[in-house]
């Protein structure tokens, strides 16, 4: 499956990546190559095969409903690029 520029643009937007005009062809070609590699699996008939989501055939453990965490705001916000009054700041969110 060959990818065109508009598809690259669409995927890049979904992934919140910017692909410049200059890179666009190169990116499209590279991804097309990868998709060609991936498409080898289409040669096998898997109609009757159950998908395997996880190598472990076990079930989810359950956690007791207990508050185990304390306030770490100061320590954690020290990692953030921009904060004010205990909030993480970002360019204005338009709903």
């Amino acid at each position, binding site marked *: 499956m060959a990818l065109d520029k508009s598809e690259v643009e*669409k995927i890049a*937007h*979904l992934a*919140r990546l910017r692909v410049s005009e200059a890179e666009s062809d190169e990116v499209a070609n590279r991804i097309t190559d990868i998709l060609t590699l991936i498409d080898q699996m289409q040669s096998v008939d898997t109609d009757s095969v159950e998908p395997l*989501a*996880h190598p*472990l055939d*076990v*079930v*989810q*453990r*359950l*956690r*007791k*409903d*207990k*508050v*185990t*965490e304390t*306030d*770490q*705001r100061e320590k*954690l*916000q020290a990692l953030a690029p*921009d904060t*004010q*009054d*205990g*909030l*993480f*700041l*970002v*360019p*204005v*969110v*338009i*709903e």
Partner: protein
Amino acid sequence: MEWETVIGLEVHVSLSTKSKLFSGSDTKFGSEPNTQANIFDLALPGTLPVFNEEALRMAVRFGLAIGAEIGKRSVFDRKNYFYPDLPKGYQITQLDFPTVGKGSLNVTLDDGREKKIGVTRAHIEENAGKSLHEEFSGMSGIDLNRAGVPLLEIVSEPEITSADEAVAYLKKLHTIIRYLDISDAIMALGSMRCDVNISIRPIGETELGTRTEIKNINSFRFVEKAIHTEVLRQQEILEDGGRIIQETRRYDSERDETSSMRSKEVANDYRYFPEPDLLPIEIDDDYIEAVRSELPELPDAKKTRFCTEYKLSDYDASVLVSTREMAEYFETVAQEGGDAKIASNWVTGDLQALLNKSNLEISESPIEAGRLASLIARIKDNTISGKIAKTVFETMIDNPATVDEIIEEKGLKQVTDSGEIKNLVEEVIANNPDQVQQFKDGKEQVIGYLVGQAMQLSKGKANPGQVNTLLRDKMK
């Protein structure tokens, strides 16, 4: 053209677990921003989700309460989208294998009609944080205290055909959730939120029309108004030969209109796939039966029981079971007071009026159930009349004394002494010769006037039954 409305509701309810869905952070409402957001909630690299068993139990509780199929195997999926209040860039939810499958709710409409409304599914997912738009030098502030709080998303079948039905469905859902004690379900605080999917079609048409989705409506009344407004908008467009665009809209309650929330975003593509950090949840019959055995008596069952056990009318019973607290209050009053009918009248009448006036929940009532029961007991045993009881009730609001103390102190005890009543009756007969004559001439209804005169003379304390009997005796 005659139109028919088709509505489906998606209701998000915050489950009242102590800790978050996938982390041990507190879920308390109203704390300082980001003080309840730990390293997982902030999606720090390397952190992983661990599932809270209480959220599962609450979801199953809800499923059983609406007679739903319970998913023996439920699977979490990632729903991918970017938003600053969604730290991981995906929401953990359940797509193909929800914990709660098909069920239904019986609702009673204002005209007394009953309707069964299907619930397609209910799934467990994480809440997002909040974006605050106050001025932060042209920036938005992100608070992640709410990020990761468990939600149950309850999706109805598109079987709702009017705003009234939508509200009845929501109220019933609210009642059940409160009975189950799985959420505060307070719309004003966001612990219950509603998205409404609306389409209209010409009556007789079997294909559904194009729908719009109105997001995040935060009161029952606004749901009703938003539906009315949106249905009208769609009708106008279609009648003018236009086309409805499938989109998300918001309801502006001040202007009573809906408007498009269309952003620059191309069509959403959430790229769901099974959450690899979590494994499938499996539950067996023993688990389900254990949860079932802990279910409280639910409103429908309670209502039926109230009708048969206490001989209440259908209407009174529905009012009394509308909240678990009111039903419990009523039962205490009925049992301790000794008369269910009087208890029902007081709880749905004077007490409700009092609570409405002071904007209180029944759990905050200034008169607790035991005291109201003593009042009922005194009406029942003729110590006071129903009318005097209202005076006592008024006094009880601010006066912590017992009902008997109030009656005693204010001298409100009903006059049942036959000597006193005899004096009263004689006085009335002497003062009203015309009416007495009319009665004697066969004008039966005059007796009411004469009893009234006697009651007035006694300042309401005379026992009206006794007065009536004695009057008739004396006028023979």
